[in-house]
């Protein structure tokens, strides 16, 4: 188990204007990537959900509304993990405020961050870029 197999990493980039009607494009691209990598149904649905919620939050919270400014998604394709970086140029996130609500408080909204954190293995909000924010999401894929 000491031998290291050179891991092939391919990178896919998708840029959409930060508008709700274009989220479907990111979802279907992520879907295809999961199919190419033969993720199981549950991993696939979870990854799609987390990416979609994160993009929705960029529209709602970083940009504050639908805009022509971009959401840049960079997806790294490996056998054993799904990694996506989401870049926006909206207002800097206050990482203390990015948290799920208490689930027993029944009210509409406040589920997105909970979904993202429940299904992904790494969730890192980085507001140190020159402009805007970078969100890194990683899902480790179980071998089958």
């Amino acid at each position, binding site marked *: 188990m000491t031998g290291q197999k050179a891991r092939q990493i391919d990178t896919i980039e998708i840029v959409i204007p930060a508008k*709700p*009607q274009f*989220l*479907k494009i990111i*979802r279907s691209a992520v879907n295809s990537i999961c199919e190419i990598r033969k993720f199981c*149904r*549950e991993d696939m*649905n*979870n990854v*799609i*959900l987390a990416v*979609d*919620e994160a993009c*929705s939050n960029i*529209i*709602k919270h970083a940009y504050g509304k639908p805009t022509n400014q971009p959401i840049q998604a960079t997806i790294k394709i490996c056998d054993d993990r799904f990694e996506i970086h989401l870049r926006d140029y909206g207002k800097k996130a206050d990482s203390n405020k990015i948290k799920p609500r208490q*689930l027993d408080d*029944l*009210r*509409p*909204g*406040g*589920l*997105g961050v*909970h*979904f993202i954190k*429940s*299904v992904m293995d790494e969730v890192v909000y980085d507001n140190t870029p020159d402009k805007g924010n970078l969100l890194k999401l990683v899902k480790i894929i179980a071998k089958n």
Partner: protein
Amino acid sequence: MELEVFKKNDVAILKISGDVDLYSSPQVRNKILALLAKTQKNLLVNLKDVSYMDSSGVATLVEALQLTNKRGGKLRLYHLGPAIRDVFELSRLDKVFDICETESQALNGIIAE
């Protein structure tokens, strides 16, 4: 995303098809509010052909649940596919909502009233 409304023995059934996401959930919300405004106490929602639902879709249904509760009515969801069921489980709302397998189960007790 498509919305269809049926009536079965005076009970309104909303059938949603396609993706319910940040783009389409406001349309679902408007339709539900309109149905409930029209003196509709109870509402059944058929989710059979929903291929995707995100937190904004769940939030819309939470709002509908609160509205029907307040009016002493019932909201019931039925025919959830595995992907949609997972989203409700993730949100831990699968116990809060009245989730049925079939339409006749969903109608049970509502029609009899």
